[in-house]
């Protein structure tokens, strides 16, 4: 659910929504969501002074609720 929500939120704000993928990994300390976007969209997703990345993390953190411990990473599709 969190990965789907993040996928939706990111797709809506980028120029290349088809290139967006969210990869979910759970580990003992919580969950990591890795968002991949087209390199051209990286700036959009991070935002001025990281504001957009922070907004995405804030919303996902709120959706995760008390369980907490969700980490959101942003990488571009050129990276591995």
């Amino acid at each position, binding site marked *: 659910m969190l990965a*789907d929500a993040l996928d939706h939120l990111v797709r809506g704000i980028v120029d290349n929504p088809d290139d967006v993928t969210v990869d979910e990994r759970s580990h003992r300390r919580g969950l990591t969501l890795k968002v991949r976007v087209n390199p051209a969209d990286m700036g959009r997703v991070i935002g001025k002074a990281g504001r957009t990345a922070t907004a995405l993390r804030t919303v996902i953190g709120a959706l995760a609720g008390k369980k907490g411990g969700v980490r959101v990473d942003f990488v571009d599709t050129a990276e591995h």
Partner: protein
Amino acid sequence: MSAEDTETVVETSEEVGIDSAAGEPATESVVAVETGGESEEGPTLADEGDVAADYLEGLLDIIDIDGDIDISVANGRPAVAVIEVDKGDLEHLVGPDGSVLTALQDLTRLAVSRETGHRSRLMLDIAGHRATRRAELQRVAQQAIAEAKETGAPVRMSAMTPFERKVVHDEVAAAGLTSESEGTEPQRYVVITPA
């Protein structure tokens, strides 16, 4: 050509708009410069509301929460409100001091501007949070206005968010007094000056 090019100009940052409105009555012409978005035939406010509603509805579907979405225009801006169906359901989307609401508003504005190609000044409300806060602030502002009138001295309010300061500026202007914001975010506050 209509001489009224002020008509097409989107209002500037909220506070500049207020200050000039409350300030010299003569400067009717060139007030708005900041946006510079050259919005000739920009998207209508209703279009913005529709894009925003789609974005938010998609999110509500995924997290499986019911919410009605209300689209309107307030003070020349599109306003979108997510209304709670089951009480308490949307609380976490408001967050402490509306922090999650602000984040969602940022994202919604980006989604809108991606579609329209124009910067969006859309206002988002969730579960009546802003509406409630506005009513509280109007009460507080009225007290401060009364104090400024009585004492004839400037009244300094506590630190507020841009939205909150805008509500206060509006109240003050309506009362015929002037106000300005001072300090830097997030410690920016309104000072009310008697007439």
